[in-house]
């Protein structure tokens, strides 16, 4: 009974029994192609992730740094963290900062994208080039320039406000000592850097709105506003939601801008956001781990939404 079966299988192939093993070798080869990529990801991201999760359930203080084994404390770190009103204040600030920044970035970005689609070639070119330049500037270089622009003594912003617009009390105004004006400066910088990405994504989406549909709506008597809200927005909704989600994810974990501005002389405690708060725990690994885990869970929850979207678009 068993004899014919292999004969049938071999029948279509050139003689020689090498076929099945070869196929399996190729199969394993596929996984070999993945190994070089998986190893660094596992070492550089996966292991720290696990390690941080473990640490967040342990007591890891000074004594442990001198060699004592860490003690399991269950959720004590989380309890301590979330029992601290200051941590809640920072969480509140971070969420507010994130929402304001994401909203301002989106509104400006969409407005500029619409503008870009409506102006002539020369003006569009100017807008595109300036956006690209801002987008491409390294974050540290742009932070440096913005500090110089907002410099209290010789900065252009104060000069503009005091000498051109006549608000003389702004002449030596220090922008970063007050939390609110600190966040204002941070917002200006973050928005300046983030808007180009929104503009280009939305503009590209606008180009895909069929001209015929718009013309038909125009013939039917739809006003410009009706056409925008009734046709354009629904058609570019996928782009809008993805871009908005990315803005929220990025703005929630903003670190470099806040950290650098703090170093410029702002009161750290009054201006901390989640990223800088984690950083300030520096050697209290357990607390840092617990807080980082909280941030991570929130981010991944947002990401999950994004990934679901991607899956629905079926791009895998």
């Amino acid at each position, binding site marked *: 009974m068993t004899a014919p079966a292999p004969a049938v299988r071999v029948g279509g192939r050139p003689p020689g029994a090498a076929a099945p093993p070869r196929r399996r070798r190729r199969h394993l080869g596929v*996984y070999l*192609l993945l190994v*070089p*990529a998986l190893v*660094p990801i596992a070492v*550089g*991201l996966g292991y*720290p992730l696990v390690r941080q999760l473990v640490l967040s359930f342990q007591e890891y203080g000074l004594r442990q740094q001198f060699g004592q084994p860490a003690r399991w404390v269950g959720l004590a770190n989380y309890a301590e963290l979330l029992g601290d009103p200051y941590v809640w204040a920072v969480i509140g600030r971070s969420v507010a900062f994130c929402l304001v920044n994401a909203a301002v970035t989106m509104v400006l970005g969409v407005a*500029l994208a619409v*503008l870009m689609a*409506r*102006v*002539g070639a020369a*003006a569009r070119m*100017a*807008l595109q*080039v*300036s*956006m690209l330049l*801002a987008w*491409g*500037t390294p*974050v*540290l*270089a742009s932070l*440096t*320039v913005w*500090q*110089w622009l907002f*410099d209290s003594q*010789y900065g*252009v912003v104060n*000069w503009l406000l005091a000498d051109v617009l006549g608000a003389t009390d702004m002449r030596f105004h220090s922008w970063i000592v007050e939390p609110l004006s600190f966040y204002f400066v941070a917002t200006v910088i973050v928005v300046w850097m983030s*808007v180009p990405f929104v503009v*280009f994504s939305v503009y*590209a*989406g606008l*180009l895909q709105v069929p001209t015929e549909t718009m013309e038909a709506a125009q013939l039917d008597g739809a006003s*410009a506003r009706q056409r925008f809200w009734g046709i354009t927005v629904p058609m570019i909704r996928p*782009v809008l939601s*993805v871009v908005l989600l*990315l803005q929220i994810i990025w703005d929630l*974990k903003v670190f470099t801008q806040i950290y650098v501005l703090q*170093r*410029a002389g702002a009161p750290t405690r009054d201006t901390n956001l*989640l*990223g800088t708060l984690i*950083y300030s*725990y*520096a050697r209290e*690994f357990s607390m*840092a781990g617990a807080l*980082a*885990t909280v*941030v991570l869970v929130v981010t*991944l929850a947002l990401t*999950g939404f994004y*990934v679901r979207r*991607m899956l629905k678009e079926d*791009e895998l």
Partner: protein
Amino acid sequence: MSTLTTPPPTPAVPTRTRAAAVRRRRPVRRRRADGRGGPLTRWLLGTLAVAIALLWVFPIYWMISSAFLPLNRLRTPDPTFFPVDGTLANFRRVLADPSFASAFRTSIAVTAIVLVASLVFAFLAALAVSRFRFRGRKSFILTVLVVQMIPAEGLFIAQYGMLDDWGLVNRVAGLAIVYVAAILPFTIWMLRGFVAGVPIELEEAAMVDGLSRTGAFFRITFPLLAPGLVASGVYGFLQSWNEYTLALVVMTDPGRRTLPLWLQGLVEANRATDWGVVMAGAALIAVPVIIFFLAVQSRMTAGLVAGAVKG
């Protein structure tokens, strides 16, 4: 590190066809823009666009302009807007600073390792994902997608602890490991689209003509992938060259600074004393990067749109 701030770690499927479609639509679009609104409206909108463009570009202009000004012309009641008869002294001072050269070398070393490792590894993985069907393929792609979103700020303490245990703090290798891990996912994602964009039929045709599978791949597909590899490479370069957060955590020794850390050190040393030198340093770092960025960005944006819009 997606984390690495400047360009988007956005899942992208760059396909030439979509980009071409976008390009084809443009003239049609322009005709419609002409047809709407009077000449006055158009003129006003154009002026507004140019004004916003100038506003947006001003900080960059200001960086370059200030870099050419000596101290006594920076500290004046009225700012100098055009650096006529400027000086190169600021640049000379920056370039003569041994810590700049040291930071430059560190950045080059880290970036070179990251670039080679991430390109080779990502290329192999992209090949596997887009050319073969195998068990676990979907979960691998999903992992790549999710991992991109892990914020550096949520992991850097744990990464520091790990590198500290292994004696890799303040080492180029240590920083390179965490950079490669952060950059790989997006690079795989990007290259995956490029590999999938080269029709397998081309390879098969070459195999019919007598090339081996490997031969067909390297003689036919690989050359067609060159633009994709360049784009991904520039992306990796920009990321590791500009990254600040992880470098801050890993390179604690001032002698092991990368360029962004060095620039921050320069700011802190010269704040309120000499912004000209600081701007020269910033410009030296920024200008080459901006040029690289201009070279690659259209490809990345097209990829984003292809991924996000169902056209």
